[in-house]
């Protein structure tokens, strides 16, 4: 039953796109995903108009002060389970706008983020790769066949793994900044 559930969730991620003050570069790359060349409907990805229908929230932009509350409201309207993907350098950390007076800087300062896709703007392939990696993290790795005496290794919780990886990326970026 859990397998079926996970299978359905991995095969049918419906996304909602939110622009929190981006320069429209990342947004164009997201729209490019829907065009015949990249066609994300192959993976069951559909761009949904309403946050009530969406599973994955794609956020672009540096999150301005004005947008922060709206972003939070949109996030809270989405039904569980939900994931947030920060797309572009601005969404990951504030990018070139970091420290600006009217900018919060980084999506993860407002809502929990599951995956970061850096780039200015990231190529459509990179976005697709990020979304697929996020979804594959939902699939717990199958325990390898082992001798009968040995216990199967405990499978790490997928969300924890993603969060850990995300934390790693943030720390790396912070180190780079230093």
């Amino acid at each position, binding site marked *: 039953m859990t397998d079926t559930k996970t299978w*359905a969730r991995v095969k049918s991620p419906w996304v909602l796109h939110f622009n929190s003050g981006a320069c429209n570069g990342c947004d164009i790359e997201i729209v490019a995903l829907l065009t*015949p060349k990249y066609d994300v409907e192959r993976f069951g990805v559909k761009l949904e108009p309403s946050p009530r*229908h969406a599973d994955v929230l794609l956020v672009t932009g540096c999150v301005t002060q004005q947008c922060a509350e709206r972003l939070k409201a949109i996030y809270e309207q989405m039904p569980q389970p939900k994931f947030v993907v920060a797309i572009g350098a601005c969404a990951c950390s504030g990018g070139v706008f970091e420290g600006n007076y009217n900018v919060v800087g980084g999506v993860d300062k407002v809502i929990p983020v599951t995956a970061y896709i850096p780039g200015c703007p990231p190529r459509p392939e990179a976005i697709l790769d990020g979304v697929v990696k996020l979804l594959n993290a939902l699939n717990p790795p199958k325990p390898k066949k082992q001798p009968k005496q040995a216990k199967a290794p405990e499978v790490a919780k997928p969300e924890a793994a993603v969060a850990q990886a995300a934390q790693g990326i943030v720390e790396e970026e912070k180190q780079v900044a230093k």
Partner: protein
Amino acid sequence: MIDFFMLIFRILIFPGFAFLLLLTLFCDWMERKIEARLQNRVGPMVAGPGGILQPLADFIKLLTKEDITPRAAKKTIFKFAPLVAFTIMVFALCFIPIDGASVLSANGFSGDLIIILAFATVANFLLFLAGWASCNPYGTIGSARVLTQFLGYDIPLFLIALTPAFIAGSLQIANIAAFQSTHLLPFILLAPWAFVLFIITMQAELEKDPFDVPHSESELVGGLETEFTGAKLAFLHLTRDVQVIFGSALVVELFLGGPYGPVFFGASWFWFTLWFVLKLLVVVAITEYITVVFARLRIDQVLSGNWRILLPAAILSLMLTVVLVTWVYPLVV
């Protein structure tokens, strides 16, 4: 006792609920594939061979998602309208002969054409109620548009459905289909104008392009579906897909000779089901082609089109049929 179990089997499995559900999901996949191919894309590919399990994956995913009821919504109607609409649509399909007989009885009864059209009307009204009860501005506008559009095309739909009934001299769907098969003359050849009009009205009934103003994404977010999540959204989507099957099945029965066709060997129910499904898929492909090729009209254009063009055309079509059946066809046949 065996009859009783047979009836249960027919209702639940074949040609009842399970068969119809599979057909619905398959048609949904086919529609998405056709749409994708016409737009130079490939469409769903990853879920199952050729992406054939994509509608199933969507359905299961929606069923297992969190179910939110907004505080402002009218709770009872909001919760039950999608489910009841779905039930009524499936019930309406039970009156359509699929394997040579309908699900509930061998030949139906006189007037079941009127009954199933009325069911479709009630289901549409329930969809309106669902959107209205969600108390979301977009949902409310979408619902109002559903009702406005539905007032315009429902009368032409009934009038055009009367054309085949008049030629066959019966209001019983099984009789209309059987008439075409015994005379070896599907009504698409006998009354092509009515077929064209029926397909156009069907597009409006199914809220597909160029008549998809009630849930036009670029204006109304999700139309009446805007506020729905989880299982309720799943059933709204399923209702829409079952409506597509229902409309296409009606076209098959009224204009393409129903499930009847040559039986080569073995059981007749197998061949009848095969012919029915093949004809149904052709009709679905035609409607999907129209959907992809045409752009959306404005709501006022849809309305004036319905009342100024479609309604007079439907009345003219009926008058033409009456003249032909009374004076012309007897000379030819």
